[in-house]
């Protein structure tokens, strides 16, 4: 039975629950907007990496470099789209 629950997966699961509840704190604690966003961004980024590495086994094959590059490129374009749109349509708009 125990070998059906490998420690990496269990730890990953517990860790992701903990991170979610830490993030939940931003609506109960009295934080500045910046501090709250920093907490949210850090928690979300760690959680995403947990899933990628522990659950999705991104690093297990010989093409892992390409796979990381793929995710990095996608994240680059995603961030450019999000922040570029905010920059163009809101922050930088007269």
């Amino acid at each position, binding site marked *: 039975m125990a070998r059906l629950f490998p420690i990496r997966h269990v730890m990953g699961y517990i860790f992701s629950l903990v991170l979610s509840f830490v993030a939940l704190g931003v609506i109960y604690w009295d934080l500045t907007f910046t501090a709250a966003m920093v907490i949210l961004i850090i928690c979300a980024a760690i959680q995403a990496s947990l899933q990628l590495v522990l659950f999705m086994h991104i690093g297990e094959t010989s093409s892992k470099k390409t796979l990381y590059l793929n995710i990095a490129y996608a994240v*680059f374009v995603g961030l450019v789209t999000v922040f570029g*749109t905010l920059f163009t349509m809101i922050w*930088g708009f007269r």
Partner: protein
Amino acid sequence: MKWDEFFVTGEPMIYGAMVSIVLVSIAILVGLTYFKKWGYLWREWLTTVDHKRIGVMYILSALIMLFRGGVDALLMRTQLAVPESGFLDSQHYNEIFTTHGVIMILFMAMPFVIGLMNVVVPLQIGARDVAFPRLNAVSFWLFFAGAMLFNISFVIGGSPDAGWSAYFPLASLEFSPTVGNNFYSLALQISGIGTLMTGVNFIVTILKMRAPGMKLMRMPMFTWSVLITNVIILFAFPVLTVALALMMFDRIFGSQFFTMANGGMDMLWANLFWVWGHPEVYIVILPAFGIFSDIISTFSKKNLYGYKSMVFSMVIISLLSFLVWAHHFYTMGAGAMVNGFFSITTMLIAVPTGVKIFNWLFTLRKGKISFTSPMLYAMAFIPIFTFGGVTGVMLAMASADYQYHNTMFLVAHFHYVLIPGTVFGVLAGLHYWFPKLFGFRLNEARAKLAFWLIVVGFNVAFMPLFFLGLQGMTRRMYTYSADTGFGPLNFIATIGAFVLAIGFVVLCYNFYYSFRHSPRDEHGDPWDARTLEWSTPSPVPVYNFAKVPHVESQDAFWHSKKHNAPLYKEGPYEEIHMPNNSGQPFILGVIMFFAGFFLVFSWFTPAIIAGVGVVIMLALRSFERDHGYHISAKEIAATEQKLRGDSV
């Protein structure tokens, strides 16, 4: 809905088109039945998963769409030839410039480029097919379904009329109440999904299916350009998918993304459209760069100058292409920071492009140049494209752009990059690889006549537009008064457009002429070329390579010819595993067409039924167990014997 709203009525030209569509359809149906070709069509083409055939179908569709988009262009030029012409009314003119733009970019340039990729890339890297042949067929049929859905708007429901960029609020339900822009959102959506799958397919093909010894830095430049292009496709097309979906929600389901009330933000559409739209420009131009690189190197009898800098500049372009989109709407009212930032990135992207121009020039230097028809297109490309590029740098300056924005200067600029870049590129590629596909070359004399008509016609048609733009003629105006003084230059431009059209007619006639008269190519290498595709017999057998080639350097085939180093190891043939044909992609395309069509008219019950049909098709595919078939070694030996004589 009444029937006279369903069909487009009241235009003699459209009635004429309807009659001719019906007549041509009947002729095709009768012809297929009379010559008993239904089975052939189904077995060999509609169900094929062979990358070469899919490529041919892409190119054929692109040529048909080139005809449609070209007729649109001629109608526009005829209308503008003289002041206050009554040839078209304003509404009809709006529809025509919209469909011209959409068709030329998405249903002509894209499939032409993708068609050449399909034909050439597996051959250049020594692969038997693309990584996912079935998915490749799905890509094609989704593209085709989208193209047909878009074109049918011409006679049913009415064409979109808000420009190819379909800016809101003009494209909203309030200002464009016909179903035209519903066609726009759904047709582009369906074909866009197909394109996205092509992106995945070709990246896997190029990264995972190369012949032994073909390292990344030994790949032919066209393959490199296709790899980079598909990376851009993969990351740019999802943005279009979202933008079109939001447009559909706004127009069909009453959401408030781009509306003028309830918090909607009309310019957000323009923003999303160009986040995709600018990378799209590089999607259609980079493969052309690759084609020219291969052609210039082949016909200069030299290896490509600055191979590494070519690759590096394309990688830079692919990243920068995602950082320049706001230069399409400098005049929106964004602050100096935004316009300044995008001005700088836009000017930066000219640098890697300039690097490529110099590389081509240095490749030519001291080369033994032969002026074949593909080479002529490449030679015309370099100066004309540079001209177009330089006017692009002028437009990149945000403050100056306030003067040029939405004038004919802009129209001239993008035709000056897209025609010598993409169109000359795919035409050069078509002439270059035609013998590989069909086993005979296009007649050179007629090809060169077509080339000169196209080049001269193009310059006569578009050079005047720069001056018209600087004089203040805006784009998309359906007529002008004689007082403006726009008349004479417009008339010259119209003459040029017709010369260009005659060039295309000659080019198409040349297919027929060459089919009748060209000598058949015996050895598969008519140009004395450099890359692997020319080491196969022409036309290429279904399995591409009887034995897997072993690559030792760049320009592998050239290397093997010069150093007498065989590409193929000695030894008996081995059995080859091939994928089975399938009708599912075609059927999926038909269902998607109807799903789109029903949604256009907001007929939700049939649309849901078609949607369920799509899910059933996916399930069928999941449960299917199809392991392909094998071609025996004996059969391969017989085929090779027939194709190559006894040289191997």
